[in-house]
């Protein structure tokens, strides 16, 4: 019988917690609890008397400790450590290989005529061209068409689209795929983005890339499905619990929906951090001219990934840092990354060089504001538009230049002042305390500021200036 060939057990008392599970596993009554506390462990181990042992092995199967009751030939190697091995060795000893980066490839794409597509589709195409083949999502208006396009295209590219049970599940599927080192993304809208924030915090903590396209809608609560710039504060200052930041991009045209989605993947892998792309309901639905790029990406596998193969066996994806000093060091590391991300600040300044009235807006309101600038210029008013393309990091240096000659600053936004708060915070942090009083054109609830409202605000104060 096979059982008889098994070796007798061996136990190093220091590895025994004295639970006694092995006691009744032994039919020959070979194992007893000791009456002595082991001075090294403070526990009471079992004692073996193998006189009657028939090497059935059941005691070893009953022992919950991997290094507890072991076959004699293994156990005799008395290699226990008195010191914490993490301190002794730094890293866990393992024969797993040292992983190396498998770089992504840039592939040429034939030049094509511009497409005429809506913003969500442009973003979806951008993701495909950035090498994303794993998309998870939960239907929510007005972002769903992006997910629908992915559900249609990805099977044809042998990619994966899974409609998750919720946004919570969505972000955690992203966590898994990102943990495996692959590009992944989702389309969502404000209430769904709220639900994802727990996972975003985990992704930031575990340093995982991923792209969140949030087509913002009216809130709070269920709100409505019309466009609002309702999540600027969430993206810039509320990405779940803890010390979290992520680059936040604010496109204003379908073309930018594609370009900035591609950029989002690049930055997300560059910094091992999620990137948020904030659209608005208008932009998601808006159809416009979209020129495809001349290159596309075939992703590699970064060295830190847990891909599930020999090369990456060594890796761990976790946001746990149990020791306070370790977690503080991790936060210092994250802060250094956030600091490094400052170079990614991007903005467009439109006719700001000589502008006396500087409008500030992003997303669709920026287009309306651009129309207003043109109209104001026709009327002889030196107006300009400053459009932050990254809301975090805020392009404060560009802003400083744009408002240098400004006598008036008018923030145009479809929210209760979330963009203005970013502007004020950025100026304050940059030590700029002297700037014209900030005026605003704000609409909420799904109403976008109209060009006529901007004109009224700017022209209504003209006399005061003169």
């Amino acid at each position, binding site marked *: 019988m096979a059982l008889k060939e098994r070796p007798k057990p061996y136990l190093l008392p220091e590895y025994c917690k004295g639970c006694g599970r092995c006691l009744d596993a032994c039919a020959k009554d070979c194992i007893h609890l000791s009456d002595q506390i082991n001075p090294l462990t403070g526990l009471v181990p079992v004692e073996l008397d193998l006189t009657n042992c028939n090497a059935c092995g059941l005691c070893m199967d009953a022992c919950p400790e991997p290094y507890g009751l072991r076959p004699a030939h293994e156990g005799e190697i008395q290699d226990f450590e008195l010191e914490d091995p993490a301190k002794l060795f730094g890293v866990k000893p393992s024969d797993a290989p040292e992983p190396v980066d498998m770089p992504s490839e840039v592939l040429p794409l034939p030049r094509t005529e511009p497409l005429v597509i809506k913003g969500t589709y442009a973003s979806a195409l951008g993701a495909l061209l950035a090498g994303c083949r794993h998309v998870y999502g939960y239907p929510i208006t007005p972002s769903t068409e992006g997910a629908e396009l992915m559900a249609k295209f990805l099977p044809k590219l042998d990619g994966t689209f899974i409609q998750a049970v919720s946004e919570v599940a969505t972000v955690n599927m992203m966590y898994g795929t990102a943990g495996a080192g692959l590009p992944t993304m989702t389309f969502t809208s404000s209430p769904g983005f709220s639900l994802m924030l727990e996972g975003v915090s985990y992704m930031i903590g575990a340093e995982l890339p991923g792209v969140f396209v949030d087509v913002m809608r009216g809130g709070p609560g269920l709100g409505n499905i019309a466009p609002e710039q309702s999540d600027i504060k969430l993206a810039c200052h509320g990405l779940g619990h803890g010390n979290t930041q992520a680059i936040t991009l604010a496109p204003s045209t379908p073309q930018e929906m594609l370009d900035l989605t591609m950029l989002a993947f690049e930055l997300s892998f560059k910094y091992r951090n999620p990137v948020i792309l904030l659209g608005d309901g208008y932009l998601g639905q*808006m159809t416009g001219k979209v020129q495809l790029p001349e290159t596309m990406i075939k992703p590699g596998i970064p060295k830190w990934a847990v891909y599930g193969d020999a090369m990456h066996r060594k890796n761990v994806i976790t946001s746990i840092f149990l020791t306070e000093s370790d977690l503080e060091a991790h936060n210092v590391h994250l802060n250094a990354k956030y600091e490094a991300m400052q170079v990614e600040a991007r903005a467009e300044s439109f006719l700001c060089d000589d502008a006396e009235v500087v409008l500030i807006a992003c997303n669709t309101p920026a287009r309306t504001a651009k129309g207003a600038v043109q109209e104001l210029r026709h009327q002889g008013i030196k107006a300009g538009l400053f459009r932050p393309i990254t809301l975090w990091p805020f392009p404060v240096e560009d802003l400083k230049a744009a408002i240098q000659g400004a006598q008036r600053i008018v923030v145009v936004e479809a929210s209760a002042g979330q963009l203005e708060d970013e502007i004020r915070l950025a100026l304050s942090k940059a030590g700029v305390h002297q700037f014209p009083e900030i005026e605003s054109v704000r609409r909420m609830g799904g109403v976008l500021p109209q060009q006529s409202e901007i004109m009224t605000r700017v022209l209504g104060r003209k006399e005061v200036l003169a």
Partner: protein
Amino acid sequence: MSKASVFYDKFERHSHGEGLKGHATHYCPGCGHGLAHKYLAEAIDELGIQDRTVAVSPVGCSVFLYYYFDVGNTQAAHGRAPVVALGHKFANPESVVVSYQGDGDLASIGLAETVATAQLGAPITVIFINNAIYGMTGGQMAPTTLMGQTSSTSPSGRNEYNGQPLKMAELIAGLDGPVYVERVALYDAKQRIKAKKAIHKAMKLQMEGRGYSFIEVLAECPTHLKMNPEDTEKWVKECMEPVYPLGVKKDLTVDPWFKRNAPCFKGEKILSLAGATSEHPERHCKGFPTHLAPNDISLKLAGSGGDGAQTAAMLIARAAISEGFDATHIPSYGPESRGGTSYADVHVAEDEVLNPGSPDPQVLIAFNAPSLAKFGPTVRKGGFVIYDSSVVTDAPVLDPSIRMFPVPFTGIATDLGKAVVKNIVALGALQAATNIFPKDTLLGAIRTALKDKCALIPLNEEAFAWGIKSVEALDK
């Protein structure tokens, strides 16, 4: 049994008595986790899948699973381990992914993820440690806590106001997704052998791409049950087992089915899916239609869902872009999926559309009376209003500088035998009324849109021609 090589040679862990460092788990004496870890390690070893394995650590006492297993490790948020596991599995279908979870994680906070992942049925292995209590947080009531069982949040014993204990193995076995569901225990040698076999089988089924497996392990938590390990084993056998009967709950014979190709990164394929082409569209415009506006024309199309206002708007935008101009189209709908209001704002600009909204359009195409009444007064002086005279009998009186074009969109389309082409009639009328683009520009956009439904092109061309004729007839 020998120590499986899948365990690290030395464990990373926080202090737990000097002598235990490096070779003992962080689990309390008598805890069931250690055994489940051992059986999992043995299964990975026996199946030779150490390099392919990804272990997803949950939140709970086994949060530090990654201290022990020399495999790829990912630590998940509380309750989310199964969907994290799916994310790994789909990223690398060759990987063997284990979601190892306790009862609070799997059966409480992560119930939605647990059930949805099981029903999805993709081959992953879920190992569920049911010890009827929250361990890591300190002995609170779990969804699996027995009736009458005391815990720190059911101090007088679980009662009817806390609900009944949740039988996960039965719940999961009741789903169509899983192929193998078994509940096992650890309290004696016989049960331990069964537990070991079950875990081995669950891993093997995944490895072979046969499907999702769920192993519920009735485990001991002597610390929070406040019993010695021996009594805890007895308690599991005598108190837990009657509520959570052991055995195979589901075992389907399924052929391997989970086979996924490597994703495609062929640019041509993506371009073809996107409908992108390198063919230059023929241009017919001699320049921007400055007779309408110097560099930006604002249009609004308004009707009910089904009128085709959005399609017509899209065709105008495509026509403009095929001529090298910029264009935008913003749809807006009522909350209804069908039959509600359907408005479209369109801009055509020589260089860049600055403001894509059309609050005061130069051109209005109205498909019904309410749309005409609503947007007619917003049309700019000198603008154009084209409306469906089949359905609008009383047109509002607008500024005299606005030119009105009553065209029977519906009547013409019905005569042509297809009411849905009324939007194409409208486009024909737009062309004749405004000369925004040459006929061939709009026809080109229509033909391109119908390239997969070529049979419909003649009908649409006819509808377009009738729209033109109707406007020309008005001029006479």
